[in-house]
């Protein structure tokens, strides 16, 4: 089984879809000659040409909006918003148009659009280049939301996103791009709405997304040395959400920690906690702990940035707190 980086895995899904299907094309800032600011689309211009690998002006409204229009006409555009912070500029098109066309038209229109974007702290980009805004989009009926944490998941989920007939916001984490992992030769689409149990355990379930999946796995190793058995579940798609797998896991372990890099307040962990308390109330032996960033815009100085975002130690401490509750 070949090893691909997370970056290569995303590129592989794009290249295969472009190769197979004339209706797939890419639009975004600096994605052609430069290969994208994260080098994800490197080499695609050479293979597919400028008509299908389209550099755009710095116009997030028009990038997403024209993607919507082309999608409604039967294309499968994949647009790139360079940083998820810049999704804020395209919110009107995403929230009022992409998400609502199908319902507003009484089912006449579908919008098979994929919006790829990335973010994440850990390299001192400051407050406007590393936010984690995925929870915002979960709140909008009509959008699907994906957050891949491994190379294999990135490829299989992106493929499914491209071929989903709904608008999908596909989040990548910047610090995961160099991460290597085994990815099968044959592309297996991963259905949207199916969680992945990364590690089975008996005492605590950690439901983690993005970079925090890996922090949770580290924390789980460490907890093991303390005699605590930790299960790590990655929902992978936040909407639709695999409630069944998550609730079943917590019913088994009776304790739960949610973990993401986004701020805790109003974060996706809050939704997870609500789903879990409802589905596993009689099984829970401790309050659900939430791990996430402190409530502050990301500061520049590395020491401050590192203090704001969560790490494996934060997950570990949360695990210990839940276990300490009888």
């Amino acid at each position, binding site marked *: 089984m070949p090893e691909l980086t997370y970056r290569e895995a995303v590129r592989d899904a794009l290249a295969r879809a472009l190769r197979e299907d004339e209706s797939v094309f890419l639009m975004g800032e600096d994605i052609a000659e430069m290969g994208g600011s994260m080098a994800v689309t490197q080499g695609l211009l050479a293979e597919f040409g400028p008509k299908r690998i389209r550099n755009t002006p710095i116009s*997030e409204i028009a990038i997403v909006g024209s993607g919507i229009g082309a999608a409604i*006409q039967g294309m499968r555009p994949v647009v790139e918003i360079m940083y998820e912070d810049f999704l804020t500029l395209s919110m009107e098109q995403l929230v009022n148009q992409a998400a609502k066309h199908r*319902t507003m038209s009484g089912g006449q229109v579908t919008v098979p659009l994929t919006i790829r974007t990335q973010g994440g702290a850990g390299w001192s980009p400051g407050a406007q280049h590393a936010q984690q805004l995925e929870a915002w989009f979960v709140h909008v009926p009509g959008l699907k939301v994906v957050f891949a944490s491994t190379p294999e998941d990135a490829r299989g989920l992106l493929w499914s996103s491209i071929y989903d007939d709904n608008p999908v916001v596909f989040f990548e984490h910047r610090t995961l791009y160099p991460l290597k992992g085994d990815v099968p030769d044959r592309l297996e689409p991963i259905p949207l709405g199916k969680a992945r149990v990364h590690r089975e355990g008996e005492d605590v379930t950690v439901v983690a997304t993005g970079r925090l999946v890996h922090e949770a796995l580290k924390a789980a190793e460490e907890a093991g040395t303390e005699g605590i058995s930790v299960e790590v579940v990655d929902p992978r798609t936040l909407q639709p959400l695999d409630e069944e797998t998550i609730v079943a896991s917590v019913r088994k372990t009776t304790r739960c920690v949610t973990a993401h890099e986004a701020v805790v307040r109003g974060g996706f962990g809050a939704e997870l906690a609500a789903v879990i308390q409802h589905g596993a109330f009689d099984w829970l032996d401790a309050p659900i702990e939430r791990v996430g960033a402190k409530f502050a815009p990301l500061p520049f100085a590395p020491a401050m940035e590192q203090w704001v975002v969560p790490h494996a130690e934060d997950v570990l401490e949360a695990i210990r707190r839940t276990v300490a509750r009888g």
Partner: protein
Amino acid sequence: MATVEERAESGGRRVSEQLLKTFFREMLLIRRFEEKVEERFRAGELPGFLHVAIGQEAVATGVCAALERDDVIASTHRAHGHAIAKGTSVERIMAELYGKLEGCSHGYGGSMHLYDVEVGNLGANAVVAGGIPGIVGAALAFLMRGEPRVAVAFFGDGATNTGTFHESLNLAQLWKVPAIFVLENNGWAESTPATQQLPLPVDELARRALAYGMKTIEADGQDVEAVYLAALAAREHAAAGKGPVLLHLRTYRLTGHYVGDPQVYRDRAELKGERETKDPVELLRARLQLTDEGLAAIDAQVTAEVEASVEFAKAGTDPSPEDAAKYVYA
């Protein structure tokens, strides 16, 4: 929509009296439809709120007549005329305003979200300028697939102050997509007059497209023949692969922003003057020298059509409440 033969004849820049009569009938149908909508709204029969485009009928009729059936439009919150002119029956539009399954958006949309994909209406939009970028994308799809179609966005002068408008025109011109941007310039952004929202003279708004190197065509939006010929020229340009066109049509909103708007912001005498001199239906009637009997005959037909649409709508099917979430995902 005009027939192929009628369009061919007009290629010579002459519109037959017969075609003008067809336009007149459609404009009067739109007028009577919107008057009926106002009446039924005031009677408390229509949920939500409504915007009518009384005074702007020549824009809807003239532009849509110049389009082919496969061409697509995106409309605005003032949408009834566009929808009728693009080919949706008044019955299905009225049923939509009553929130019925038989409506053109099956009761999910309402007045500001009239869709009819079958005839190329990609939807009216309640966000000012919200439909413009989608039209750039539709036109891009046509260009990439080599289809001889154009995509048309309707919007008002207020929309030209949004970033959405500017990003869209910039991208459309950059990629030379077959789009027509129809600036339906009535000089009002809701209650705010041109003098308070536009740094340019209201009649010179097309200059905004010139900044992108885009071809602009202007016509008197109250003169349906002028609108039609200008739209034909715009379509010809866009469909020939020469790039998008801004079609600037100066028009007049002879009513309030919404049905029931007391228009406290508007000069009464000026409005009265506009109603007397700028009504496109009256202007066309004078041009056609329609006799009172001639007018009455057409009026009786379209009024009956509108009345029948109300009956159709009232007899329509109410949606099941639980179907509300039926189309959230495909």
